[in-house]
């Protein structure tokens, strides 16, 4: 195991990986990479590697789960046994069940659920490598996969975390900062509608710090949102080129 670092922020105010307090980790996103799924996306954010597949809307099985007035959204957040240093049991843990629910609830407001009653949309999130902030990266990727599947949506959902490390508020916590830091505030946002769909806080912050953290996270979200849109459009760029 890695040794515990002495300081999370050095004298110059740089973090363990050399980032400034308001820098994101490098983000790479791809869309439509699983031919068998109706929609899919893959995201790398720092050392996070997450794969998302969307199926549906389709018939609900078992039938009694079907809702008569709207679509049922099912989410499964799962970490691969090899995604962390110590092998993780492949059975769903308490944490994974909770994250599945949290992610589902952050995606639900973006989807026109009432359009397709008695159907289900399945979202499968597979974390291949985890490095802190997987819930946020999962939400970002899942929303793209839904758009790729052709599900009608109000807006894309994008998520990013901010937190307190040492004495300062920083953006996009990585694993060490998450574990050894003082607080973590994940935020999910629909940027065009300016609506927050997820807001959590783990740790202790005073009111001012909390406000700073939320504003910083929203800024980070907006940066990732631009990438999200670009990637979604890039899938059809070859088509556009044929036109010229």
């Amino acid at each position, binding site marked *: 195991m890695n040794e515990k670092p002495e300081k999370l922020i050095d004298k110059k105010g740089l973090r363990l990986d050399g980032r400034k307090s308001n820098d994101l980790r490098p983000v790479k996103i791809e869309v439509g990479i699983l031919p068998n799924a109706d929609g899919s996306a893959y995201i790398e954010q720092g050392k996070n590697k997450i794969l998302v597949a969307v199926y549906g809307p389709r018939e609900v099985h078992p039938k009694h789960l079907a809702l008569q007035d709207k679509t049922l959204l099912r989410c499964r957040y799962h970490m691969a046994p090899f995604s962390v240093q110590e092998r993780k049991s492949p059975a769903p843990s308490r944490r994974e069940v909770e994250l599945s629910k949290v992610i589902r609830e952050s995606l639900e407001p973006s989807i026109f659920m009432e359009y397709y009653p008695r159907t289900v949309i399945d979202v499968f999130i597979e974390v291949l490598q985890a490095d802190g902030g997987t819930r946020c990266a999962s939400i970002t990727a899942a929303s793209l996969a839904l758009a790729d599947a052709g599900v*009608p949506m109000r807006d894309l959902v994008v998520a990013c975390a901010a937190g307190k490390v040492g004495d300062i508020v920083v953006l996009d916590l990585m694993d060490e900062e998450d574990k050894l830091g003082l607080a973590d505030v994940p935020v999910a946002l629909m940027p065009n509608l300016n609506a927050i769909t997820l807001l959590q806080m783990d740790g202790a912050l005073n009111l001012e710090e909390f406000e700073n953290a939320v504003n910083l996270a929203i800024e980070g979200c907006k940066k990732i949102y631009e990438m999200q849109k670009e990637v979604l459009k890039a899938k059809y760029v070859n088509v*556009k080129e044929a036109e010229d």
Partner: protein
Amino acid sequence: MSTFFEPRQLVTPGDLLAEGEYIAGENTYVEDKKIYGSRVGLVEYENKKVSVVALKSFYIPKPGDIVIGTISEVGFKGWTVNIHSPYPAILRAGDVLNRSFKPQKDDLAQVLDMGDLIVAKIGSYDRTHDPQLTVDEPGLGKITRGQILTITPTKIPRVIGRKGSMISMIKQETGCNIILGLNGVILITGKTYEDEELAAMAIHKIDEESHTSGLTDRVTQMLKEEKTKREGSKK
């Protein structure tokens, strides 16, 4: 009153398309008198109507639509048909047999078995009930020969072309009969396998380049070139 995109520009869900005196068309929604897109697609401004032509979608049944489906289940009173939609379709036995049907005498699997393909019309459908099919019309029923192609349902209008220009051109050039299921499934029946291949090639080209202009001319040219090439190789 203003629009925010060029016509035929690529938009993503949540993009603000227009503000003010506009009518929200397909794949858009209104909030606070502003019109936003709800799917990935190409935006279109037609008079006062703002709509998005989706690049990926799924088929939602509409009464009167002709669809092509696969029998997925043989039941006691009828069949369940997969029509490439979120909802499975139902085909009643009486509708196919054209007479009152007796469960003791008739074996439904002998009429239509699992995996059989049918051309059918949506008889009825609403939010609360699964779509019901009917084959009680000339041209509908079991498919016995030909080739099947599947494309995104939103691209079917492009295959038809303006006033049917595209589809009639393909029919004429290849000598094939083509039935377009509005659920994105296409049946091609021709005199020879080669003719069917040719028509399938043309439809694939339309599917890939569906949002480009002057497509009919290019498909015509491609078909003619392909035909002369094949005749040349025969000699």
